[in-house]
């Protein structure tokens, strides 16, 4: 058996792949957080809960309507996105004139409600969600076994992240979005419907979270607590990357996933804290974050 630094390559690459997958989720979630924060100036604490909701919608579509994974991949983000639009219109929109901290408190309350409701209905033990048949099995590479589904998750999330980046950087819609992020009053004066933009941006951001939830469903079991566990790590990712740059948050997400995977190989005890430790180091060296714009 081949080894690198005394670790079998099989284990090393296996953990790296797992890290890359966690990184995909960090990337999509922090991307959504960054877009929402950029325009709405709100840190969406409910992001983790909506990610969990995406996974649950996928499970419900399968269990109650017999609609499989590929349907879920399209429908679940839509459901979560529409839910987000309703949340924004009914609740969040009332807070724009207040201190940003109220947005954090409101979305924290929403997260508690959503998680509590799912916990009451489905318990905390987790529900299984099968890998779609098209993506079961795997490839035997010279240095490791690569399960097809895991490869798909990495590819799918990279595609979504790049597509989002292209929309924001290269399309007219994205240009409006960036302009509204810089100066909403001025953009409104040019006749752009900024409140509608805010709503759609929030919907889009949480739809991304719902999409990540569907991707995660076959890997982790569908569990009401899955969002609460990941959102705090994603916050740390956001602090490390800074929310000024779309690409920055994607790169940071993937990179930190990899680092976490490596830590699992070489020093497993620290794997749950390594991202927080990196956050501390970044705060000491570059307080604005790796891609941050303002100090």
């Amino acid at each position: 058996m081949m080894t690198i630094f005394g670790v079998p390559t099989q284990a090393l690459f296996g953990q790296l792949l797992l890290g890359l997958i966690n990184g995909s989720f960090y990337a999509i979630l922090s991307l959504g957080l960054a877009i929402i924060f950029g325009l709405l100036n709100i840190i969406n604490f409910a992001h983790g809960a909506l990610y969990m909701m995406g996974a649950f919608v996928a499970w419900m579509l399968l269990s109650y309507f017999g609609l499989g994974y590929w349907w879920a991949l399209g429908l679940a983000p839509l459901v979560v996105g529409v839910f987000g639009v309703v949340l924004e219109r009914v609740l969040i929109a009332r807070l724009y004139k207040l201190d940003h901290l109220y947005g954090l408190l409101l979305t924290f309350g929403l997260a508690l409600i959503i998680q509590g409701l799912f916990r009451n209905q489905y318990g905390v033990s987790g529900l299984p969600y099968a890998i779609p048949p098209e993506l079961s099995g795997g490839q035997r590479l010279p240095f490791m076994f690569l399960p097809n589904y895991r490869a798909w998750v990495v590819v799918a999330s990279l595609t979504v992240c790049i597509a989002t980046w292209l929309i924001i950087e290269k399309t007219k819609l994205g240009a409006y979005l960036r302009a509204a992020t810089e100066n909403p009053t001025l953009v409104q004066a040019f006749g752009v419907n900024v409140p509608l933009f805010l709503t759609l941006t929030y919907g889009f951001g949480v739809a991304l979270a719902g999409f990540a939830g569907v991707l995660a469903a076959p890997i982790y079991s569908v569990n009401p607590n899955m969002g609460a566990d990941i959102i705090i790590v994603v916050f740390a990712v956001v602090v490390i990357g800074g929310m000024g740059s779309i690409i920055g948050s994607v790169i940071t997400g993937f990179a930190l996933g990899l680092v976490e995977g490596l830590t699992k190989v070489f020093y497993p005890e620290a794997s749950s804290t390594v991202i927080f430790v990196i956050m501390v180091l970044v705060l000491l060296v570059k307080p604005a974050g790796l891609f941050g714009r303002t100090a």
Partner: protein
Amino acid sequence: MADTAALDAAPIAAAVVPENRDDKALQRKIFIGLALLLMVAPLVLYPVYLMKVLCFALFALAFNLLLGYGGLLSFGHAAYFGMASYLSAYGAKVWGLSPELAILVGTATAALLGLVFGSLAIRRQGIYFSMITLALAQMAFFFALQAKFTGGEDGIQAVPRGALFGVIRLDDDRAMYGLVAVVFFLGMLTIYRIIHSPFGQVLKAIRDNESRAVSLGYRVNQYKLAVFVLSATLAGLAGATKAIVFQLASLTDVHWSMSGEVVLMTLVGGMGTVFGPIVGALVIVTMETYLAQFGAWVTVIQGCVFVLCVLLFREGVVGLIARRLRKPL
């Protein structure tokens, strides 16, 4: 963009009319009333319930010192509360310390932790500050989960209450209540003193307009760090005391939901009011005691209270009363 947004945004704490001698007199009367209430309450109510309320009230007061007067929303106060309760429990159980020393050890731990975490967190402002404190507290949670001395999922159980100064046995709930009441009252007076000191005035100036405070020559970061450490220390005092009262330190005390709970207490009672957190703690602890039978619904109800408070009731109970009376409370 950031600057104009800060100007547009309403301040986090309710604007209070300037204080004069009459207001101070009213607050003094409330203090005396509270002291009397603390003496009478155990005759009427179950002492263990009262002690729980008092520990959480002190925790919320400490948190409010940071949020209401420093304008800093920490989402990780469970770290100081919880780690202090671990150290206090460990000191009393394993090192065989007397309760006052155990509480002191726990409080000192929280102070130290507050110094380290605070100096990191104040490097960023606003929303980032909250995220950093939350992430650091989650690190403390994982530490408590993995470290040997905390007992993992079981926590530290059957902590002896011992004898205060080696003389007064605290196994009697009435004696224990006496200690908790004294700790709470002294903690509250300390916070009151801090708020009304020149230091407190500068804090409020920083909260309301940081740039102006900087331009006036105040070293804003030193003030922020100082109030952070004070707040963490007092939160630790509450946690350390709670560990002795309930003879237990567990992961619940360091979990992020505990950080959320103290935010909720302060929000319900009234951010930036002197007495609000006490009312908030009373409301939330009572609510949880009565709703315990509904299990997981407690979380949902807490969430609803959060949402309702943020949307409709931002001043909190005491904030509302203060506005009606046109006096700061």
